[in-house]
């Protein structure tokens, strides 16, 4: 199970302890991509980004170039950076924010230049105190270096960057909720249409919202060229991607691997990546793309890490998080915990999500506690059907945003894959795994 020798695009500096400093950044080719971009026309930069098929690294996987091309022409428009990483078990942007903040800043300025946007907001999850300090320091240093501010590197192009802290709300990772939050309001998602950010975004102006990892790729694309980027990966899934590997593996962590050419098996078992499951345990199931993604079983471990490939198999690469569960895992408890998360983080605007999440959490809890009924399985699916009619993939939506329709994924997966385990909880009146405490 060879892991390809693709270059590291966004994690190339992480071997240095001072990877977050301007000195190290400049010594390792920093801001060269921006200089190159500024020597091109904005249209040429946009064209390059469109040509490389840079799929958004936030979760939806929408091509960055197409997103940019949809920006409504207006006297004022904005770039907003989504650094509110909160999808369960996703911790890749956290790494980029703390360890290579200049790479992000450079990516932001390149994007601003391509879009001819002169104000950018970097919205960073409030819990990332160190990340906020590092990015603020990087922006300060970049101003001093002439890479941000007026007349960047003498090009005549000017841009101002504001670092904005969040305050702890998962839903603010949804782009319209993030915009509401940035406007100083509760993080309530806006309904689309009409509130597509590219048309009506921040302060009602056209806005591009890009993920941290997406933008962090831009300096490399500029310095190495579109062709070098497109040569990596396959089909629409070009380049490398960060995968946050967590749960029952020997070496949990963030790994940058070539898309499509690498499989889930490589990621979980390769000695230089996950290193396999500890304690001689067997793989029971894994979650391929964040808490919203349907689960996969051991028979799907050879699927390639490609957006379309995983989509065709009935799930998604999503946020780039992979959670491994070994054979000691109680799937009822796992589904319960994920559902509890959605219940706590539902913004409360839409009834199916606000009420449904709570009902689902309580029913899963009683099954786990041994007081569930056999009919609870149908009840779970019935409530799920109210959230995402048909409980199919990709899900249908009955709510303003996709949080609601994401809730049934883990429940439906767990029931479909491990129905007997649910029934055993009901029959024995207890969790067969003797699950420990829970909140």
């Amino acid at each position, binding site marked *: 199970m060879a892991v390809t020798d693709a270059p590291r695009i966004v994690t190339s500096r992480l071997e240095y302890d001072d990877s977050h400093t301007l000195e190290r950044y400049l010594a390792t080719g920093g801001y060269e991509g921006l200089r190159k971009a500024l020597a091109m026309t904005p249209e040429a930069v946009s064209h390059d980004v469109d040509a490389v098929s840079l799929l958004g690294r936030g979760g939806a996987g929408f091509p960055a170039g197409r997103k940019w091309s949809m920006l409504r022409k207006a006297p004022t428009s904005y770039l907003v950076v989504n650094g509110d990483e909160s999808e369960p078990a996703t911790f890749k942007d956290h790494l980029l924010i703390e360890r290579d903040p200049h790479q992000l800043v450079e990516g932001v300025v390149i994007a601003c230049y391509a879009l001819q946007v002169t104000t950018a907001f970097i919205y960073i999850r409030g819990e990332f105190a160190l990340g906020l300090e590092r990015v603020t320091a990087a922006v300060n240093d970049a101003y001093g270096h002439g890479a941000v*501010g007026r007349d960047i590197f003498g090009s005549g192009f000017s841009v101002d960057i504001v670092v904005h802290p*969040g305050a702890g709300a998962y839903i603010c990772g949804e782009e319209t909720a993030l915009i509401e939050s940035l406007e100083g309001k509760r993080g309530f998602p806006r309904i689309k249409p009409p509130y597509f950010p590219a048309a009506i975004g921040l302060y009602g102006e056209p806005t591009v919202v890009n993920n941290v990892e997406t933008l962090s790729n831009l300096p490399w694309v500029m310095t190495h060229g579109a062709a070098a980027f497109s040569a990596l990966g396959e089909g629409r899934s070009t380049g490398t991607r960060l995968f946050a590997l967590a749960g029952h593996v020997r070496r949990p962590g963030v790994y940058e691997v070539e898309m499509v050419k690498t499989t889930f098996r490589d990621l979980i078992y390769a000695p230089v990546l996950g290193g396999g499951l500890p304690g001689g345990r067997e793989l029971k199931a894994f979650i391929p793309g964040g808490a919203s993604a349907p689960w996969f079983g051991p028979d799907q471990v050879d699927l390639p890490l490609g957006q379309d490939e995983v989509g065709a198999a009935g799930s998604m690469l999503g946020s780039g998080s992979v959670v491994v569960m070994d054979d000691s895992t109680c799937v009822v408890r796992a589904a319960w915990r994920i559902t509890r998360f959605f219940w706590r983080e539902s913004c409360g605007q839409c009834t199916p999500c606000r009420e449904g999440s709570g009902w689902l959490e309580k029913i899963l809890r009683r099954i786990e506690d041994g007081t569930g009924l056999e009919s609870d399985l149908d009840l779970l699916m019935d409530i799920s059907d109210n959230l995402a009619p048909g409980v199919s993939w990709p899900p249908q939506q009955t709510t303003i945003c996709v949080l609601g329709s994401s809730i049934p994924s883990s429940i439906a997966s767990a029931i479909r894959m491990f129905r007997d385990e649910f029934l055993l909880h009901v029959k024995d009146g207890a969790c067969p795994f003797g699950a*420990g405490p829970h909140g």
Partner: protein
Amino acid sequence: MTQPHLPPEVMARAREIVALYPHPRSALIPLCHLAQEQDGWLRPEAMAEIAELVGITPAEVLGTATFYDMLHTEEVGRYVVTVCTNIACMLRGAYELLEHAEQTLGIRTGATSADGSFTLEDAECLADCGRAPCLQVNHRFFGDVTHDDFDRLVDDLREGRLDDEVPRHGTLVRVRRDGGLRVDAVSLRTERQAAAAAMADRAAASESKAAAAASESKSSESKGAG
């Protein structure tokens, strides 16, 4: 009139923050963090002054603040300990750690110790799953936390040995923005137009250069067409 609650230096910083945004209300969350840095939590007096700074009512500040987990509208301890119990940490013993934390601190999850030093919370994913189970103290990360580690951590905090790494609750970002503040709107527009003109000139120059090269190698007819 009563004395203002936020001291002058905090008010000055607050006005700087408001100036960063095209619309003052955008400064609401950063100002709430600033008030928490001052008081450890969001006092009603502070919310009233924030409301005035951004031009909304105190009720709107409260209504917004209560949406966010990090903004506390009730008093919390000097150290807010948030133990992640989401899926990745749960698979690695987070609930056992939370139970242990309750025993060590002598409080239930959600409560504050009688001496006001610790508040214990059960958090959603904190995005440090490579070091699960993880927790934060005042939003500073601690990973791969064993039960013994937790007890040592509490001792260190109590004895003030981590004062540099873990400021008291409410202090989020100790680095202040010192670059450029804000490119003012008027000169920005002028510079933007100048930049666009310069880019157009450059594009025209490279086009005419290409045209000249083409006319040299071919006939002069093509130039006339352009």
